[in-house]
C-alpha cells in the first residue's frame, strides 16, 4: 500500500494524525497531554520526514523513530516553539542559540565529508547536500532542506479559499497551474458544484502546457550538466516560446492566476498550428540528441534507482515512472479519452528519466490537440460548505496532494504534499557507485522542487 502523506491537526484537546495511503485513510487521535505516536518509517522509509516535520510543527513525539533530529527547524530556530499549534500566534521569532545539526556521515580511514549548499553555484534554489566520499566515489549522501520554509501552512489558516489562492499559486513557480488545479478541485467539492467540461478542458490544456515548459527546460539542462551546451540553447529556445504562449493565453508567463472560472476564447486554429510546429521541433531535437554517444555514455547507468527501492520509498512522478512504476494521476477516463498514454522506462537511470520526459512532452502535445475544442459553459458557484476536502493532481514533477479543512467558511488546516517531498527522500539511493561529479546530473534528471518541498 503506497504511502501518500502523513500529517497532524490540532483539535484543541488532542491531535489528529491523518495517514493517507493509496486506497485508505487512517485517522488516529492522540491526547495533547501525552503526544506520542509510533513511527511508520520501518515499512515506509519516506514517512520519516512527515514525522520529523510533525514533531517540529506540533511537538509530537515519535517514540521508536531511529531519526529524531529536527527537520524544518534549523540550527538557530527556537527549539521549544511549535508554530502549527493553534495557540501559537507570534509574528516575529528571534534567532536562538546555535545548536549544530548532526549529519548522517560514514566515517573511516580516508573517508571524507563534502558539504554542498545551501547556496549553490548555479541559479538554483537553496538546499544542502552532505556527501561521505571515498575518493571520487560517493558512499552516502544526506539531503537536508527547508531553508525556504515560509510557514505557508500556518499563513493560510484563517483565510477564505479565494484569498488563499494568491498564495497557493505562488508556492512553487514551476507547478503553479497544478497547485491551482488542486485548489480548484477543492473549491468545487466544497461548493458542491460540478466542474463544467469546457472549463476542465481549458485547465487541463494549461496543465499540459506547464508540463511541456518544465520538461523541455530540463531536456536542455540535463545535457548541459553533462557538458553538452548546444542542447540547452536549443531547448531553452523552445521553452521560451512555450512560455510566451503561456503569457499569450493566460496573461502571465508562469500562469499565475490562470485557473479561473471565466470562459476564455482560444484561437484553436492558430494553437493547432503552434502545436504542430512544436511537435516537429521536438522530434528533430530527439532525433538529434539520441544520436550523440558521448552524451548517452554519461546518461546510461548513472544514478540508478531500482524498481524495488522506488516502490519502497513511495516515489512518484517522473522518477517513479522511469523506474518502471505505472503511476500517473492522469490515468483516468477524462485523460484516457483525450489521448493520454502512460510513459514508463525500466532502467531507472538518468537516461531513463530523460526519455520519460521526452516522451511525455510528445504525449502532452497529443493531449493538448485533443483538448482544443470551442465550447463554453456558465458556472455559478454555491456557498462554500465546511468540511474536510482533498485533491490530487499530476504536476510536471509528479503526484501533488492537497488537503484543506474548512471551518466557518475559512481554512482551518491547510496541508499540501509536493511530489518532491517523496522523491527527495529517495535521491540518496541513486548515489552509491557514482562519482560526485555526476551528482548535478543525477539531481537535475529528477528536477525536484525545493520551494514546494519546504513550503
Amino acid at each position, binding site marked *: 500500500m503506497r504511502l501518500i502523506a502523513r500529517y497532524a491537526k490540532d483539535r484543541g484537546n488532542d491531535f489528529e494524525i491523518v495517514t493517507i495511503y493509496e486506497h485508505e485513510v487512517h485517522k488516529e487521535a492522540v491526547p495533547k497531554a501525552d503526544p506520542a505516536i509510533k513511527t511508520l518509517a520501518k515499512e515506509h522509509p519516506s514517512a520519516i520526514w512527515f514525522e520529523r516535520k510533525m514533531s517540529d510543527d506540533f511537538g509530537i513525539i515519535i517514540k521508536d523513530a531511529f531519526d529524531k533530529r529536527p527537520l524544518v527547524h*534549523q540550527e*538557530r*530556530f527556537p527549539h521549544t*516553539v511549535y*508554530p502549527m499549534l493553534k495557540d*501559537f500566534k*507570534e*509574528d*516575529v*521569532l528571534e*534567532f536562538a542559540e546555535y545548536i549544530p545539526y548532526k549529519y548522517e556521515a560514514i566515517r573511516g580511514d580516508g573517508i571524507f565529508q563534502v558539504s554542498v549548499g*545551501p*547556496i549553490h*553555484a*548555479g*541559479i*538554483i*534554489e*537553496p538546499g544542502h547536500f552532505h556527501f561521505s566520499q571515498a575518493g571520487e566515489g560517493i558512499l552516502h549522501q544526506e539531503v537536508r532542506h*527547508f*531553508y*525556504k*520554509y*515560509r*510557514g*505557508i501552512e*500556518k*499563513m493560510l489558516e484563517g483565510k477564505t479559499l479565494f484569498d488563499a489562492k*494568491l*498564495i497557493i499559486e*505562488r*508556492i*512553487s*513557480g*514551476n507547478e*503553479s497551474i497544478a497547485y491551482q488545479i488542486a485548489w480548484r478541485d477543492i473549491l468545487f467539492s466544497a461548493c458542491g458544484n460540478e466542474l463544467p467540461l469546457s472549463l476542465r478542458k481549458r485547465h487541463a490544456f494549461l496543465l499540459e502546457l506547464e508540463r511541456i515548459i518544465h520538461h523541455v*527546460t530540463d531536456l536542455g539542462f540535463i545535457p548541459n550538466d553533462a557538458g553538452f551546451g*548546444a542542447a540547452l*540553447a536549443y531547448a*531553452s*529556445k523552445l*521553452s*521560451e516560446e512555450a*512560455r510566451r504562449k503561456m503569457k499569450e493565453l493566460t496573461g502571465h*508567463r*508562469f500562469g*499565475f492566476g490562470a485557473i479561473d472560472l471565466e470562459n476564455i476564447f482560444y484561437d484553436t486554429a492558430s494553437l493547432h498550428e503552434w502545436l504542430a510546429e512544436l511537435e516537429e521541433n521536438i522530434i*528533430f531535437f530527439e*532525433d*538529434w540528441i539520441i*544520436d*550523440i554517444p558521448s552524451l548517452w555514455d554519461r546518461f546510461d547507468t548513472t544514478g540508478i534507482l531500482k524498481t524495488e527501492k522506488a516502490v519502497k520509498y513511495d516515489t512518484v512522478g517522473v522518477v517513479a515512472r522511469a523506474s518502471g512504476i505505472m503511476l500517473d494521476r492522469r490515468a483516468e477516463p477524462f485523460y484516457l479519452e483525450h489521448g493520454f498514454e502512460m510513459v514508463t522506462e525500466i532502467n531507472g537511470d538518468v537516461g531513463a528519466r530523460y526519455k520519460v520526459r521526452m516522451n511525455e512532452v510528445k504525449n502532452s502535445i497529443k493531449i493538448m490537440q485533443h483538448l482544443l475544442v470551442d465550447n463554453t459553459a456558465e458556472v455559478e458557484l454555491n456557498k462554500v460548505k465546511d468540511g474536510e476536502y482533498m485533491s490530487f493532481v499530476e504536476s510536471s514533477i509528479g503526484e501533488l496532494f492537497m488537503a484543506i479543512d474548512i471551518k466557518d467558511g475559512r481554512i482551518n488546516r491547510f496541508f499540501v504534499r509536493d511530489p518532491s517531498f517523496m522523491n527527495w527522500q529517495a535521491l540518496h539511493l541513486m548515489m552509491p557507485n557514482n562519482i560526485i561529479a555526476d551528482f548535478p546530473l543525477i539531481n537535475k534528471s529528477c528536477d525536484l*522542487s*525545493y*520551494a514546494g518541498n519546504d513550503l
Partner: protein
Amino acid sequence: MIKFWKKRIKLGTLTEDLEFDTQLNEIQKEIKDHVHKKFAGSLAIRMVDSGSCNACEAECNALSNPYYDLERLGIYFVASPRHADVMLLSGIMTFNMTPHVLEAYKQIPEPKWVITLGDCPAMQAPFDKNFAIKSPAEEHLPVAHHIAGCPPDPKEIIKGILSFLRKI
C-alpha cells in the same frame, strides 16, 4: 550533428519580433556602454535565492536563452560570491536562509551592491509576514536597487539592471 548545423544555419539569429528586438537592441547598447565604463567590461552577478517560488530563478535562467543572451552584454552570473560585484537577491528572506544570505553578502569583495529581484524580498508579494519570514531585505542589507514584478520577465530584469547601472 550535421542535421543540427544545417538547421542552425537555416535558422540564423533569432529575430522573432522586430519591435521587441529593436527595443532590446537599444537597451543592450546602453548596458554595454555602462558595463564597459563602470566595471571594466564585465559585471559579475551572484544570484542568491532566499525563499522564492523558483519563478525568479527560471526567469534568470531564461536570460541566457538565445532570445536574450545576457552574456553578450558582459553581464555574467558567477558561481561564488567572491567573484561577484552584485548580489541579486530573490525570494522572501526566510528565517532559515537569512544567516546564509548575510554570510554570502559578507563574502563579496568591496565595492558591492545588492539588487532585490521580484516582489518577495520587498514583501510586496501576496505572502503575509509571519514567524518564518525575516523580510523585507532592506532591514538586513543595503539594497541599492529593486526590480519589481512577480516574477519580473527577462526584459524587465535587463531594464532593471540598466537602471541600476545608471544610478551608480
